[in-house]
């Protein structure tokens, strides 16, 4: 129980990676706050967690791109548990935005959630986190934080930017005993990744199933990554044992991108 009684907020925790990070953290004794803007996903998560009596989570509906709703998350967390030890900035959106598209909506939507939302949440949490108490900020980024893919300028921009934010903030708050790290997740077995892969197949004019198999074949370990594996890495980074790991962008990608 390396996270016993630690209060940790997971954004975008209604599905995918966020949900599994929340689960792994609960299993290690953390008191987890899950927020998401999607009511239906949250309801499903609530039911999943209720089924397992040892998992305790506070579920808050919030759009983290809106400052007043970010404040609600912080207020509700403090009201229930009186402190905040960690934040996992997992909420994110992605998708294609070829530069030739007339519409700018996708560009703004991706930057707003992946960067501004992360910024608002981090700022608000740091305001509530005690100094010298092993505070933790964990940002979920991507292998596209370190490499690129055609027609993904918005997503690549946002994910690269998360690393710049992580590295700079790590130095800023190190004196307070707070660490800031990013996890660069490769191809994870989630609906989000499935949708991205299908989109890329369409873009390249290939059948979705063939393309998905090609993608898996290109991963040295020949499989997608289980979101629980990302959860375990997040648990390690959130634990007191990882106090000296800060400013890092750690890859969990089955070898698709190595130094």
């Amino acid at each position: 129980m390396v996270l016993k009684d630690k209060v940790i907020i997971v954004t975008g925790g209604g599905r995918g990676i966020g949900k599994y990070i929340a689960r792994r953290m609960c299993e290690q004794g953390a008191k987890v706050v899950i927020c998401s803007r999607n009511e239906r996903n949250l309801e499903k998560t609530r039911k999943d967690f209720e089924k397992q009596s040892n998992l305790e989570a506070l579920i808050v509906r919030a759009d983290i791109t809106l400052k007043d709703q970010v404040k609600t998350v912080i207020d509700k967390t403090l009201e229930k548990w009186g402190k905040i030890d960690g934040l996992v900035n997992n909420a994110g959106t992605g998708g294609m935005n070829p530069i030739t598209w007339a519409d700018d909506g996708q560009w703004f939507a991706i930057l707003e959630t992946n960067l501004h939302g992360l910024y608002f949440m981090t700022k608000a949490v740091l305001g509530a986190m005690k100094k010298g108490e092993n505070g933790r900020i964990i940002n979920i980024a991507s292998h596209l934080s370190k490499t690129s893919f055609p027609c993904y300028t918005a997503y690549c921009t946002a994910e690269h930017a998360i690393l710049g934010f992580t590295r700079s903030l790590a130095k800023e708050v190190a004196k307070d005993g707070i660490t800031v790290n990013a996890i660069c997740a490769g191809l994870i077995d989630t609906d989000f990744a499935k949708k991205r892969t299908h989109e890329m197949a369409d873009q390249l004019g290939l059948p979705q199933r063939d393309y998905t198999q090609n993608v898996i074949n290109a991963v040295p370990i020949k499989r997608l990554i289980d979101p629980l594996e990302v959860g375990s890495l997040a648990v390690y980074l959130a634990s007191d044992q990882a106090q000296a790991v800060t400013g890092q962008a750690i890859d969990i990608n089955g070898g698709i991108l190595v130094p």
Partner: protein
Amino acid sequence: MDLKDKISIVTGGGTGIGKAITEKLAREGSRVMICSRNLEHLEKTARDINDQVGEEKVFPLQADINNKEDVEKSVEEVIKKWGDLHILVNNAGKSGRVPLLGGKDEEWLDILDTNLNGMYFFSKAALRVMKDNAGGRIINISSVLGKFGVSGYTAYSASKHGVIGFSSALALEVAPRGITVNSICPGWVETQMAEKGINETATALGMNPEEFKKTQISEIPIKRFINPEEVADLVLFLVGEDARAITGQAISICGGVTQ
């Protein structure tokens, strides 16, 4: 973490970081063979840890890791004694300030031999006996000097950059066997080797070692050296089942010095 059925080798396991790694692996249940040239250190470490865990978990074996025959014999010994091998930690290493012009060629050769050939011989011998898809792990201890250089340390820096190159290439080579290969890049760790480095560099700069250590600490965002136990905790995470998708990576544990 349950490492009850795991068999490990830690090179240079008698002192410093290697000793801390050996202790953590043994406490989690693994049987560990430790080797180095200095049998006295090895025997003391083995005795201390075996006394603590109340079981004969650690087995000392004298070996010159630069010597291929010695290395092959060590791995044979492990197989003879325990019948299997799951985890190899290439930790043995040599440091030293060797200015390019003033330094002796023997010093360059010694550092490169120990840090690269030792790792190469051990990895090769271990990979011959490690079973496929049985959670095989190779962890190479590099350094933050595997990511940047420091004046007077061309040999050490070259060797530690080499460790990262070796790890990422080997990771791809053995990924089909379900074996992961990663390197860990510690910053300043509280060890005798670091103390020697502090003294050497301080002398070269005409500074008092304590004063020099203070300036080094002031440049570390978390304002302290790393404990060997913290590096060992990262090793424990990487040998775990949930780290099976992390491969080919070079993970820094440095208090935010390198990013």
